[in-house]
Structure formats: structure tokens, C-alpha cells
């Protein structure tokens, strides 16, 4: 079946602008994760959604970052007033219910802030 999809695949934006990144998880997966991956680095946890529970936002680096998950499916990560240090690949993953650590990752969105 279809895997996790993310859009756009690449985004170039000017410093100070807002951006929205989209994630379509695998159908039926109740858990959704956002990670950030800077060049040559590991995955930095950002936020976790599980079903209808309140999300774990503890990984969001600043209040410029926010995420929503509508209808328990599609998620949007929003970065307001982007800064150059926000440049990274943003990865979304989903998994079947809880607990499940076998996360299925999307291809990521490469964000470049100029």
C-alpha cells in the first residue's frame, strides 16, 4: 500500500516568512511523529500525536513551531518567522497504535531558509 507521503519535497523560503509542511501518514496508523534532521545529524524529535490524545510537544524547539493533526490523519507542521537555523530536512513518520516503535518514515521535506 501507499507509504507516508510528505509535501513539498523541497521548500526554499526567505527568512521571516512562514512555512507549512504536510504529512499524510499510512492509513490506519494512529501515531504520527515529526522529526528534524540537520545536515550530518541524527533525528531530533519534535512532536508526537497518538489518536485523540493531547500531543507531546516537548520536542518543539521554540514557540515558532506548531503542528496540527486533523481528523486523526493528515498533519501540518508550521514554522512561523523562519530563521536560517530552521534549515533542515523535516521528516514525518507514522506507526500502528501504541506502543509501536517500528515507525514508517516519509521521504522528508528539505527546508532551506535564505
Amino acid at each position, binding site marked *: 500500500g501507499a507509504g507516508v507521503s510528505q509535501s513539498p519535497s523541497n521548500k526554499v523560503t526567505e527568512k521571516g516568512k512562514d512555512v507549512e509542511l504536510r504529512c499524510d501518514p499510512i492509513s490506519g496508523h494512529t501515531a504520527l511523529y515529526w522529526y528534524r534532521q540537520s*545536515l550530518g545529524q*541524527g*533525528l531530533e*524529535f519534535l512532536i508526537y500525536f*497518538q489518536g485523540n490524545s493531547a500531543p*507531546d510537544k516537548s520536542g518543539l524547539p521554540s514557540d515558532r513551531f506548531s503542528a496540527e493533526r486533523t481528523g486523526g490523519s493528515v498533519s501540518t507542521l508550521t514554522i512561523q518567522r523562519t530563521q536560517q537555523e530552521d534549515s533542515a530536512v523535516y521528516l514525518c513518520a507514522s506507526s500502528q497504535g*501504541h506502543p509501536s516503535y517500528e*515507525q514508517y518514515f516519509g521521504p522528508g521535506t528539505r527546508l532551506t531558509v535564505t
Partner: protein
Amino acid sequence: GESVGLHLPTLSVQEGDNSIINCAYSNSASDYFIWYKQESGKGPQFIIDIRSNMDKRQGQRVTVLLNKTVKHLSLQIAATQPGDSAVYFCAENGQRYSGAGSYQLTFGKGTKLSVIP
């Protein structure tokens, strides 16, 4: 092993040889570990996992070894192929608690495996 800087540790292996990628984890409370493979331009892909009640688990051409005494994890790839060239990440589940019994994975920095044809 894992890197703490911007430069990933790199392992270069001749095609057909065995590869061993090492990972030191930090939390003795972690009871679940995973290895992911990330090819260039793609998201990470699950390879193999292991629970702390085991010290070895085998998959297809891959073996994960867990030494809880020294908090060390390794991934062995048998008969390494060019398609194995990628960055390999280990992850542990003991560092970040999300509430309601959910623990998040914490990923290492990764090791780049280059296979020489």
C-alpha cells in the same frame, strides 16, 4: 561508533565482506532498540529491533547484538552489498517519555557505510 560532531563516522567496507556498525546508548532504562537505514534523499527505513531481554537477534543478512553491561549495540551485516551503502542509525526508547505509557525513540547521530565494489 556514533558521532557527536557534524562529521559522521564512516565505515568503508569491501563488497562481500562483513560490516559491523557500533552504537553506544546512554540510558540503562532503555529496553527497546532499533536500527534504521537511511539512503541518500530518503527517509529512514526499519532494519531490525531487539528488546533488552535478548542479547542477539538475527534477520536476513543482519544481526543485532546488545550488551547491556556496557550499554553497547552493534549491527552486523553479512556479505555487504553496494545497496547497503547508507547511513545507519541506532535508537533507544528510554530517554523521552510522552505520557500515557509512551516512550519516544532517541536516535544516535548515525554511521555512514560505504561499500567499495
